[in-house]
């Protein structure tokens, strides 16, 4: 019989070890899964985790790492703050889409104006769009007590349909021969989010992600507001006693994570994606939830976890091309990763003892 004995403090060693264990367990289980499906497990794991960085086509895939990691890290940084406070924004995907739409709207409205301030304005619009979309569940929770989990999630489906409507309707490219989708912002110099250093994949979103990691680290470990957020997450009454207003906290966390997700959407639509289509949402908002947990809700952890999950995206695509693995493999991997992490997490909070039978 196994007995769980709670630890007085979460074990630091296990805090770091469990994500690593979760990744390894995912690789092993994933390999088994591939073997069952008739693929060579070793080749598949190598294709997903190794080849994107060091394989034969690495020069193409390596820049993709930053491109995919930036939105994940940007979104997860915001989400992690809310998760720490026990505020569950799981609708980042929707905020991402709306941020992309509002940011693109600025560019499309001003087209073909060329000005240095256009791109910064788009960033602001992206931030504002994501913020506003995140404030909907915040206000509904503060005013009426509606669950932010369900409302923010419902708003993902709404945002997806808004994006489809925009792509087919108001934002459709007038010179696009009737095809759905907006003008390509990459071909609009003032609005484009270009690769800043050739061959790295680094665009403004990467810069923003780096800043977000730094800023959230300062907030969570040095600022009293971060302290209040952490207190509210583990002991809400104590936080209230300290003087934290629960409603302000809800608005802050959902607004901030919404704004960061919105910015991520803008950087994507003005850069790698290039245009507004009905497929604006690619699941970054959901994957970022996994990034946040895998990174232990800690800025540095999120940085590493974001890079790792970006790797699985690229590796998954590669495996799809070279081994014709199903596209959903990545999703399964990501889900598995979160499962294993949550499972192994028991080791950080409890000591495992064997019960002695008397």
């Amino acid at each position: 019989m196994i007995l769980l004995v709670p630890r007085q403090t979460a074990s630091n060693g296990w805090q770091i070890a469990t994500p690593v264990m979760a990744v390894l367990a995912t690789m092993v289980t994933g390999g088994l899964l591939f073997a069952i499906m008739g693929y060579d497990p070793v080749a598949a794991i190598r294709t997903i985790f190794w080849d994107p960085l060091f394989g034969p086509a690495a020069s193409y895939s390596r820049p993709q790492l930053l491109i995919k990691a930036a939105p994940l890290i940007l979104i997860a940084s915001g989400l992690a703050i809310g998760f720490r406070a026990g505020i569950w924004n799981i609708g980042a995907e929707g905020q991402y889409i709306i941020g992309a739409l509002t940011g693109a709207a600025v560019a499309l409205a001003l087209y073909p104006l060329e000005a240095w301030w256009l791109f910064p304005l788009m960033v602001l619009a992206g931030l504002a769009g994501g913020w506003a979309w995140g404030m909907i569940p915040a206000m509904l929770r503060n005013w009426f007590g509606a669950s932010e989990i369900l409302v923010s999630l419902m708003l993902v489906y709404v945002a997806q349909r808004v994006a489809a409507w925009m792509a087919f309707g108001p934002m459709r490219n007038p010179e696009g021969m009737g095809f759905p989708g907006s003008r390509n912002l990459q071909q609009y110099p003032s609005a484009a989010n270009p690769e800043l250093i050739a061959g790295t994949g680094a665009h403004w979103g990467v810069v923003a992600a780096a800043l977000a990691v730094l800023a959230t680290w300062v907030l969570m470990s040095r600022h009293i507001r971060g302290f209040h957020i952490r207190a509210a997450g583990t002991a809400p009454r104590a936080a209230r006693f300290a003087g934290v207003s629960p409603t302000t906290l809800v608005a802050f966390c959902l607004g901030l994570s919404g704004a960061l997700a919105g910015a991520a959407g803008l950087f994507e639509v003005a850069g790698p994606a290039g245009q507004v289509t009905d497929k604006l949402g690619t699941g970054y908002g959901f994957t970022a939830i996994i990034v946040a947990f895998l990174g232990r809700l800690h800025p540095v952890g999120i940085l590493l976890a974001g890079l790792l999950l970006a790797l699985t995206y690229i590796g998954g695509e590669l495996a799809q091309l070279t081994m014709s693995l199903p596209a959903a493999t990545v999703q399964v991997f990501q889900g598995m990763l979160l499962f294993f992490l949550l499972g192994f997490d028991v080791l950080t909070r409890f000591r495992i003892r064997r019960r002695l039978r008397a």
Partner: protein
Amino acid sequence: MMIDPLSVFLLLISASTPILFAALGELVAERAGVLNLGVEGMMITGALAGFAAAYATGNPFLGFLVAALAGAVISMLFAGLTQLFLANQVASGLALTLFGLGLAAMFGKPFEGVKAPPMPTGPLRINWIVWLGLIMVPLIWAFLNRSRAGLILRGVGENHEAAHALGYNVRLTRTAAIAFGGAMAGVGGAYISIATVLQWTEGMTAGAGWIALAIVVFSKWTAPGVLAGAWLFGGVTVLQLRLQAAGVAVPVQLLSMAPYLATILVLVIISARQKYSRRAGGGSPGSLGTNFHALR
């Protein structure tokens, strides 16, 4: 537009069936104190497993049986995490949803583009699964309110410390409730693939699991309330489809938002009434969403 009230009603109860099943299952889980956000993942698992079984055997009912099993089996991942490893229920539920969606997408590829075997209709032009869903409402009500097992389940959900102190097995009760929730979600998902859409497409549950979660809140944690909520959403869906078919001058994409917006609206109204009403009771189970750990 010609509207035959009876056929609209039949469409409505058919459209509400997936959500009815999933929400009834989640109702039982939540009454036991478990918040399982993995409903969407369990539904899509059921949708694929049920469809695959129905397609392979040609028997839709066998499909539903397999869907129930598949839903229950995958829900055990959640049960293991939350009941054995005491992981956070919100995160574990999300993980189940993400994993289920991925798994179904991965194994669903071979089933794309094939057709489900026909569902035989039951009495009154209503198929048997819809009947089953309707019968489950009074059954679950009676289980919760009139049976000893239901009383214990509610006790566990209301105050797990007290239930433990009286000698009831909190973990076992909750695991059983989670499995039941998984089976019901599986059947609900399979209804979409086998009886409504008649084929398998990736992500076909399209948020139905989340709407089911909202309906449990709407129901104030009662079985008749779940039925009312499911019918309300069936109504919104049918109306929205009717308007689309009638070619109303509103973009299709905006019309198709209706169920989600309605969910938010209903959540807001119900939450506000709970927040501002002075009356005790009728709220969520006392231990909902919290894990139980007994030091022995």
